[in-house]
Structure formats: structure tokens, C-alpha cells
């Protein structure tokens, strides 16, 4: 719906949701969101507005007159609760879009979450950092490095001013800073940040956790670019090892309880079984495939590394119910493991392959 800024009531200055310039159109559904043009409306719609359109109405309409203090307080609480929910929703959406590689679309969601976070927690709060991080990551993905740096510096400053900030956030911040520096081809600086990422992640989850492995992977990439092959190799090995252990645990868990999963108790069992969430799935696919490609193209690499990464990939696809791909990688693993001395390992691959065959 078209608007004319000159026709706005005095003192009312409607701005575009995305770029804060004067607005010329209005969302016809919620009627509380304004844009400078169709372009931005479309971007916002795809990014986040589609999901939150109806939810915005109660947050943005003017406060009705409430007679009693009690009512006012109640409304205040309700508002706060809604806002917190919105932060949660927008952030998850943004994160998911990032993992899917849709950096462009993640921006509106992140902006929205940042806006709500500022409203709820104020400007200097540590709660703003996740939103900054999403924005930063999206900017890196879009290749807008100076902007990314701006967001990440803001996040870093906030973290620095908050000594009690959790290690998980610190780790994430360092990872993004590392990625930024890697994108700027400043590998030494990037390595320092990845090291920070690994350190904080280890403090939080332990050194052998899949959430720590991301740091190792990025670090390996940085070393790889610096042409320090043996270091990179050893790091890739570590990453593969961590994923391998984790995935085989998950596969074991699934094989142990196949009946209950399909049975009536499937729902109650869900919580006990630790699975991979969407983000982790995306990460696993990306990381393991990258390592696999590298190993396959590397002429002098040891057969056990290739076999291991193939096995890990096979397990991953099995867990994702993609049996064909699982079998494919399983076979690759078997052929690679022929040169390996470790009997037990070869046997485990073959056994796993049999399991895959049975699934069909």
C-alpha cells in the first residue's frame, strides 16, 4: 500500500524497515511495517517478515489507555515476554538461513533480532552479541568485509566489557573474527582467533567435542592456505576423528534402539537420544565433504585417512536417512581401507555397509 511521507501526521516519521530511509509503502497485512520500496519489502518478506508479520501487530500498535497500575504492569510483562520470543524466533531463523548459505536472506532476520534485543536489554548488553555475530557472519558471506568487521568489533567490545560472558559466545565470536581475517587473507591473525575459538570451546565442551571441531577445521584451512601441509593434515585428521567418534556413537545408539524409534514410544525416546541439530548436520556435511574431496585429490595421503573420512560420511548420510549416498561412501571406504593394516577398522566398515544394505 502506497504512502506519501508528506501526508504523514505531524511528528510521525515512518522509516523503511531495512534501510531506515523514508518509507513509501506499507505491508498490507500487518500494517505496521514500512518500506522504502518494493525491493526491500521483498527482501524482508523472504528473510523474516513472512514468519513474523502477524506477530508484529501487538508489538507495534499504540498502547491503549489502561486505567489501573495492575493492568499497565500486566501489559508491560506481556510485551516483554513477546519481545523475548521474537528475539528467539528471529535469531533461529537467521542462524538457519546462514547454515543454508543464504547470507542475503539472513540479514533482515538478524537486524530484526538485534532491534528487539536492544529494546529489551539495552544497548550495551551481552545479549546483543549473538545478533551481531549473525550479522557479521552474513556480511562475511556476502563479502562485505568492512561491514563485517564493524559488527564483529562491536560484538568483541561488548564481550570484552562483560567478563562473565560465557565461553560458548566467546568461542563463536573468535570463530567469526577468524573467518573474517581469513577472508582478508591475514592468516596469522586468523589463526590466533581460531586458537581462541578452540580454547574457549574446549573450556565449554571439552577438546574432543564436535562443537570444538569447527575451530580445528578452520584452523586446518588456514594452515593449508599457508602451505603448512603437515600441520593442516594432522588437524584434518583430528577433525575427522572427532566426527567419526561422534557419528559412530550416534549410529550405535540408533542401531541399539530401532524398534522403539518406530514404535509408539518414539516420542518419549527422542529426548534421551542426542542427535544432530540442523546446524550441526549442515556443518557435518560441509566439513566432511571438504575433507573427503581434499583427501581424494591428494596423491600422497595415507589410505586410512581416506577410509576414515569415507566411513564418517557414510554414517552421516545413514543418519540423515540418505541410504544411497551412505552405501556409496561405504563402498569407497571399503575400497580405500584395503591398504590399511588395522583389521578392526576394515571390519567395522564392512559391517556398517551390511547394516546399510539391510535398511532397504
Amino acid at each position, binding site marked *: 500500500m502506497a504512502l506519501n511521507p508528506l501526508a504523514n501526521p505531524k511528528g510521525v516519521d515512518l522509516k523503511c524497515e531495512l534501510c531506515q530511509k523514508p518509507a513509501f509503502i506499507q505491508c498490507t497485512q500487518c500494517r505496521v511495517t514500512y518500506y522504502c520500496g518494493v525491493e526491500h519489502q*521483498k527482501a524482508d518478506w523472504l528473510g523474516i517478515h513472512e514468519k513474523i508479520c502477524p506477530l508484529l501487530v501487538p508489538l507495534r500498535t499504540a498502547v491503549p489507555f489502561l486505567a489501573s497500575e495492575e493492568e499497565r504492569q500486566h501489559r508491560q510483562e506481556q510485551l516483554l515476554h513477546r519481545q523475548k520470543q521474537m528475539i528467539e524466533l528471529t535469531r533461529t531463523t537467521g542462524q538457519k538461513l546462514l547454515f543454508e548459505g543464504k547470507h542475503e536472506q539472513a540479514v533482515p532476520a538478524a537486524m530484526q533480532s538485534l532491534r528487539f534485543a536492544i529494546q529489551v536489554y539495552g544497548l550495551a548488553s551481552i545479549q546483543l552479541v549473538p545478533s551481531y555475530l549473525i550479522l557479521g557472519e552474513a556480511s562475511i558471506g556476502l563479502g562485505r568485509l568492512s561491514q563485517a568487521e564493524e559488527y564483529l568489533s562491536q560484538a568483541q567490545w561488548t564481550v570484552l566489557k562483560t567478563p562473565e560472558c560465557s565461553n560458548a559466545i566467546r568461542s563463536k565470536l573468535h570463530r567469526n573474527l577468524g573467518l573474517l581475517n581469513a577472508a582478508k587473507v591475514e592468516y596469522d591473525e586468523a*589463526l590466533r582467533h581460531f586458537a581462541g575459538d*578452540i580454547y574457549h570451546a574446549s573450556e565449554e565442551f571439552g577438546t574432543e567435542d564436535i562443537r570444538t571441531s569447527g575451530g580445528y577445521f578452520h584452523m586446518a584451512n588456514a594452515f593449508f592456505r599457508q602451505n603448512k601441509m603437515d600441520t593442516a593434515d*594432522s588437524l584434518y585428521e583430528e577433525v575427522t576423528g572427532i566426527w567419526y567418534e561422534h557419528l559412530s556413537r550416534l549410529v550405535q545408539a540408533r542401531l541399539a534402539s530401532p524398534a522403539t524409534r518406530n514404535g509408539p514410544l518414539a516420542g518419549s525416546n527422542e529426548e534421551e537420544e542426542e542427535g544432530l541439530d540442523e546446524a550441526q548436520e549442515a556443518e557435518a556435511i560441509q566439513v566432511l565433504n571438504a575433507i573427503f574431496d581434499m583427501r581424494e585429490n591428494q596423491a600422497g595421503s595415507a589410505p586410512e585417512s581416506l577410509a576414515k573420512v569415507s566411513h564418517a560420511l557414510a554414517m552421516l548420510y545413514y543418519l540423515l536417512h540418505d541410504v544411497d549416498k551412505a552405501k556409496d561412501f561405504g563402498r569407497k571406504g571399503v575400497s580405500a581401507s584395503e591398504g590399511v593394516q588395522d583389521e578392526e577398522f576394515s571390519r567395522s566398515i564392512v559391517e556398517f555397509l551390511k547394516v546399510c544394505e539391510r535398511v532397504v
Partner: protein
Amino acid sequence: MAAILPAIGRHGEHLVSQSPILLNPTPPSKSAHGSANVYVHTGKRYPSKKEREKEQRKVRLRAQQSELSKNQTSYYRNSYKHNMCLDMLCEGFHKSFSELFALIKMQNEEREKAGPESVLWNQELLENECDKLDMLREQLCLVENAMRQGNYAEVYTCRFKLARYFQSTNDKWLSDHFFESCLATATGIKTDEGKMAAEGHCNVGLALEESGDLHDAAKNFENFFALTEGHEDWIFDNDKLMHCEACIHLTRIYTAISDVCKESDLSLSIEFLTKATEMSLKSGDKQLHGEACFRLGSAYEKNGDPETALTYLNKYLEICRSLRDNAEIGKACEAIAKAFEKKGKIEESIRYLEMFVEVAEQSQDEKSISRACSDLGTMFNSLGRYDQAVDYFNRSYNISRSLNDVEAISSSRVLFGVAAAHKMVQNFSQHVELGGRICMERLLEWKDNRGDEFDKELPKSERILNL
């Protein structure tokens, strides 16, 4: 479609002047504004001259200091451990990092588990001890480098060095950890026919022994022994023969185990002592073997099998003789005598005890003489040969007196008294029975002055009178 990313500054003034970064990090304040420009922003009051000077001085001083790089600032900001981990990771030593990290975590966990009441709580934490951390970092990085090159011998030496270092600093848990990792490394080395593995087993065994885990220690020593078998020419760095060392360690550990189960299960204890004896024989150390035989013999004797005990004790005696160690010979004689006594062969027993006395006299070992005499005295006493018993007890008593050994004096005094009484009692009762004048006089004399005249021949008249 190109949504322009909104510039960050549009959301409000909170997005920052970078200047506060130059300041020392201050605790988070409620306002996000940097404190440096407060006066300019608020504009409420123009600062006084004094304040301005102060501010200017501050700026001047800061300008004099060189600007710190990000790394340098992080050295001030983070803990020593944090910085070290970062450096290690940056250099690509991630395995060293995870090992170090795991060690620190392990210590913290154990400390938490032990609780604030325990000794562990007040112990200095590894993460605060820079020297040790430096040492760990240096060696672990060397280890990782060597690992990448596949040089396992180097890995072994580095780990071994660490283990020795922590042994010297009394960090047992760390030295244990590294000895174990040494062993793990060494078992992977195939080129030296297992010499390193043998050494590794030996070290782990010693560590376990120290922490009191005797059975596991024994297992390690057994491996050590098995690996050195057939390689009698291997030597340690300190020029000791490895195989021989293995035997000695095994002897010691078996003896220790048998000591533990001595109370509960004597036959098991004997089993271990038998093993110890075998090992001591293989070690070629005569004295060690002799001692093992002695212990085994004693155990058999205690278990009521003097026959077997005797064979081992005789072996012991033989070894002692060949070593010309008088004190040991004495000990052997004593033990053999005891075994014979148990068997009921008193004569044999006495023979060995006399030998014991003889040997002890030769070596001028007063204490042994005293003990031998008292044993002999007891023996004669029980045989009813009171004269000899009194003689020996007397001697034992005198020696203990000259040694001024209070305990020995009192015990030998009692024994001496008992034997003397035994000797006297026959004549005494005879006198009481006869009851003639002379007898009565002698009895009274004894009562008065403790003069012992009962041995004297009685006049014929007295005897006839009463018969």
C-alpha cells in the same frame, strides 16, 4: 535483489568511538559511552584548569607509550595458561594442546571431587605453575613434531624426560601419566626388539609400586622380564643389566605381595615367595637369593612344614657360608634350629644353636650371642637339663647387662630365675621331705640369706635317719 545492509551507526549513538580501547579495560559501566570524552559530551560544565592539566598529562603519557598490538594486549588480559594454549595452537601443535588441556582438567576435576577438606584442595594447581607449564609445552611440542616425522624414539625420550622432570618435582600423578604414555609409545616401536617397551614396563611398574598397586606393578614387571629374556646384554643408561634388574624388581614385588597376604592366606603368600625365590635365582645375586630362600623357609616353617623349610634354610645357610657373612649364618642357624625344634629333633636343634653361638662369638656380635644363649637356655630348660640352662641364661643375662639393653635384661633375668629355680627345686623338695636337723638348718639358711647349700652332700646319718 540487493538489500543494502544497513550501516551500523544508524541504530543509535551506542556504536562507539574506538577510543576507549586505548584505555585499560574498565569494568562494564552502565552507560556505553567512553569515559574519555565525558566532558565534551555532557557539556554541563567546562573543566577547571586543574582537570584540564590532568587530562592533558594523561594524553601525553599515553602518547609516550608505544601502542600495543592485539597479541600484546591479550597477554595482559588473559591468564598464562590461556596465552600458552593460544600460542601452541597458533604454531599448530593441537595434540599437545589437547593433552595439556586434558591434564589440567583432570587435576581440577580430581580436586573438585576431593572437596575443600582434602590435601589436594590446597595444592598448587598446574595451570598456575609457569615453570612446569613451560616445560610441558616445550617437550610436548617436540613430541608432536617427532610424531609427525614418525620418529618414535624421539617421542619416547621426550616423554621420558617429562616423566623424570615431574618425578623430581614430586608431581606423582604427572610422572605416572608420562611413564604410561612412554610405555604406550614404546610398545609401538618395533625396531629395537622391545628394549624401549621393556624400559617402559619397568618405569610404569616402579610408579605403580610406589602408589601401592602391587599386583599391577607385578604384571608390568613380568612383561619387563619377558621382554628382556633372551637379551641379557641389554643395559640401562646407568650401566645396570636390564634382565638382572627385572629379576630384582620381581623378587622385591613378589615379596611385598606375599607380605600383604601373609595374614590372610599363608599358602598364597608361600606361592609368591616361591616365585620370588625363583626370580632371585635368575638374577644371579647370591645374597638376594639367600634372603629369598630364608623368607620362604620361614614361611614354610610357620605353615607347619618344617621339612620343606629345612631344605630352603639349608640352602640359605650354604649361601651365607659361601659369602662368609657371619651374621647371616647365625640367622640361618637360628632358623634351622627352630625348624628342627618344630620337627621334634631337639638334638639337632641344639647342635645348630650351638653353632649359632659359635658363629656369633666369632663375629663378636654380643646381641646375637645373648639371643643364642637365651634360645639354648630355653631349649635345655625344656629338656630338663637345668645346669646347662642356667649356664646359658646366666651368660645371656650378663651380656644383656653389659649391653645395657633394658628389655633384654628383664626378659633374660626372668628366664634365668626360672631356670635357676627349676634347678634348685628338686634338692629343695628333697630337703623338705627329709626334714632332719641339717636339712632344716639349710632351709632356714636359704630363707635367711638365700645361701644355696642344697647341692652339698648330706651327712650319712641324716639320710639314714629318715629312711
